[in-house]
């Protein structure tokens, strides 16, 4: 028996209907139908999100805040309405805790700079994990270097899981902040952040969560998690590029000094003395990415319409299906075998180079990501040059997976 296909496809016709909302999925690539399995890098956008952008520009485009005229009012109202949509999405206690950023990277840098300025001192420590994306490593390295602080790293095991038992020995009086991803982008591991947050809070240490890979797949409740900061990007969850979110607890946002200076973030400016605006505006210098914010709100509405639970079930079904097909291929080796996983399948085939596989899959219309996925330390840990990563979204379907399977087998044959 070669494969053991899971035969339960939750409500397939509905999923075909959702898939139809993504026009790009109809296109060909190299004369083959496109099988887009690079969702962890960036998701595709439903027509409604694209339409929200067009509508904005055709009907109400104007700079937000401060303007008295109608278009400016309409834009501002829609913009602030979108903030409430985001608040609802992650269950923040107030919309003032929602800061719009360029993306996850920008959000983490904002915290690293603003938190770092007043809260990190020489000899202090910042704790991250060995599973982090470069965006949750480098900003901390930079601030640690600036401040003469030390970067500590919670290690991972062979399954690609955090070694939670080592956490107590890594958190101490010098630890100023813990910065951990909710879901690993290269391996798909879902980290036990609830536990980590609890342990850190027992010592009054704030925790930042990099949620870039979590929000597309899981339902996130920042109050239940009790995290101090939560960061994510729009472009990985059906929204436009260039927009992201920093959630920060009221008390932290009020306490921290601003990151960037400029319009919007001030109350009054004098050459001698400048006073800053209230949160969240204090952290939003400059004209914001208005269409991006509206697109993000529309993407959230779209996801909530489908239902986060249904999305998760669908994606895990696809993931499971893909896993069972590919695991049957001789030489298949999964990288990252954590118990709790998001729909991300990272693997290698014998000693074949991921790049070679990637090129040959692409020739057959299959888009996967190959390489280190901006997590070089993870690759060093496993002592591999990279992985082939197929990542799934609810709009993928069985055909995508069959195409991946067949293309992969053909590639292997050609390379062996």
């Amino acid at each position, binding site marked *: 028996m070669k494969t053991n296909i899971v035969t339960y496809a939750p409500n397939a016709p509905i999923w075909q209907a959702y898939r139809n909302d993504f026009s790009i999925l109809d296109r060909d690539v190299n004369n083959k139908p496109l099988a887009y399995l690079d969702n962890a890098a960036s998701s595709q956008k439903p027509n409604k999100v694209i339409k929200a952008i067009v509508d904005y520009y055709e009907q109400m485009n104007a700079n937000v*805040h*401060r303007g*008295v005229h109608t278009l400016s*009012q309409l834009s*501002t*109202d829609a913009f*602030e309405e979108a903030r409430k949509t985001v608040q609802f999405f992650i269950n923040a206690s107030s919309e003032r805790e929602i800061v719009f950023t360029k993306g996850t990277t920008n959000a983490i840098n904002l915290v690293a700079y603003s938190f770092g300025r007043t809260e990190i001192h020489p000899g202090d420590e910042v704790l991250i994990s060995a599973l982090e994306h470069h965006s949750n490593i480098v900003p901390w390295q930079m601030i640690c270097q600036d401040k003469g602080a030390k970067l500590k790293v919670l290690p991972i095991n062979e399954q690609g899981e955090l070694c939670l038992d080592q956490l107590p020995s890594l958190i101490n009086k010098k630890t100023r902040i813990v910065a951990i991803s909710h879901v690993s982008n290269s391996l798909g591991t879902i980290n036990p952040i609830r536990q980590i947050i609890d342990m850190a809070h027992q010592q009054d240490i704030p925790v930042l969560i990099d949620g870039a890979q979590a929000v597309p797949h899981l339902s996130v409740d920042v109050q239940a998690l009790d995290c101090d900061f939560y960061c994510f990007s729009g472009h990985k969850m059906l929204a436009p590029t260039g927009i992201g979110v920093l959630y920060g607890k009221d008390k932290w946002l009020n306490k921290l000094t601003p990151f960037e200076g400029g319009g919007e973030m001030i*109350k*009054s400016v004098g050459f001698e003395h400048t006073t800053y605006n209230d949160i969240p505006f204090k952290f939003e210098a400059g004209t914001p990415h208005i269409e991006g914010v509206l697109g993000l709100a529309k993407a959230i509405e779209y996801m909530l319409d489908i239902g986060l639970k249904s999305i998760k079930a669908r994606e895990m079904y696809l993931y499971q299906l893909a896993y069972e097909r590919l695991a049957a291929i001789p030489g298949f080796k999964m990288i990252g075998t954590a118990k709790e996983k998001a729909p991300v399948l990272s693997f290698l085939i014998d000693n074949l180079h991921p790049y070679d596989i990637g090129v040959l899959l692409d020739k057959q219309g299959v888009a996967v990501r190959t390489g280190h996925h901006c997590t070089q330390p993870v690759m060093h840990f496993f002592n591999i040059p990279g992985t082939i990563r197929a990542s799934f979204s609810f709009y993928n379907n069985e055909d995508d997976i069959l195409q991946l399977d067949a293309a992969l087998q053909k590639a292997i044959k050609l390379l062996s």
Partner: protein
Amino acid sequence: MGKCINDIQDEIIEEFELFEDWMDKYEHIVEMGKKLPVIDPAMKTEDRLIDGCQSQVWLAAHLSDGKVFYTADSDAIITRGMVSLLIRVFSGHTPDEIANAELYMVDRIGLTSHLSPTRSNGLLSMIKRMKTYAKAHLT
């Protein structure tokens, strides 16, 4: 005994129903803005200022005979007109009445946009302060 808050609101709504177009409506608001008694400049202190970014509002309140009386001013005349309307509604009532009042009149006379949270005229903050003052004197 004076009219209750909702009677005054209904009265204002009726008043505005007379106006056929926005011009007449704003003429009326400007008129009211002009009639609002000028506030003593000495009263225009930092702590009474509600900074609305575009137009500023000063608000003072005092309790007399168990009732709250407001005086207010703004540097913009349309804001003064709106301020005058709000004073007419709230002033002279008990803290209890004010704290529990639902302000539906602004919506009904078609001036909601002036109270949108993103308006930069300080009016919404003014209403909040009016209510906060009343709540502080609840018995």
